[in-house]
């Protein structure tokens, strides 16, 4: 016996109405982070000097500015998706809603601070 309507079956979005969107976005952001975090780790390891002038000069290169921007965006998207699941698993009631709101706001604020800083340094 099938309880789902033919339309909901065709849409394949499940009871939450959004299907595998969260799951899929988590995988996509992880795929994006794979080269980006490796690039950052290798850049830091191979970076000879960590003083202010060298760090700014590095950030002013197009590769560093664009790579770091992509990293900040996909990193906090992945953080948001991952921590959301953990909060949903371990936190209940009103605290759950408050934590989720705080998480979303924090991630968005972090992305904007990151992007603003990168743009300010690179121009």
């Amino acid at each position: 016996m099938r309880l789902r309507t033919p339309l909901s079956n065709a849409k394949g979005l499940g009871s939450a109405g959004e299907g595998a969107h969260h799951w899929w976005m988590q995988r996509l952001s992880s795929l994006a982070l794979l080269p980006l975090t490796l690039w950052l780790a290798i850049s830091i390891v191979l970076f000879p000097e960590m003083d202010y002038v060298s760090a700014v000069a590095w950030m002013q290169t197009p590769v560093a500015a664009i790579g770091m921007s992509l990293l900040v965006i996909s990193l906090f998207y992945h953080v948001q998706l991952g921590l959301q699941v953990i909060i949903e698993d371990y936190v209940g009631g009103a605290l759950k809603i408050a934590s989720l709101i705080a998480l979303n706001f924090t991630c968005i604020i972090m992305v904007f601070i990151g992007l603003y800083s990168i743009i300010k340094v690179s121009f």
Partner: protein
Amino acid sequence: MSVSQRPLSPHLQVYSWHLTMALSILHRMTGVFLSFGAVALVIVLASMASGSNAYSFAHDALTHPIGLLFLFAWTFALYFHMANGVRHLVWDAGLGLGKKVASSSGWYVLAFAVLATLASWLPMAIGAVS
């Protein structure tokens, strides 16, 4: 909410530890820990935008022994979470789900994380010695 007197289903403590479950928990723990690293990254970026004084404050904090300890732990957490994430992606493709394969891929992930962490800190260790 009233406390239920009914028996509970078997929970974590009745199972003997396996590598796969330990790594599963470690994946979450490193994920949470790396989220704080992401915030630290943004703080460093913001300090660069705020000028040389703010940057040297962030630089001094991260090169302080406690800061270095955090950086080292973040390096390991990053490589572990990265390799174990790839392991998850392979599972999502329906591959490597057997009991033996899942255990051995776990050992490979741990080995990669340890080796990549040591390789990343090698230049600095050599610099400190010489």
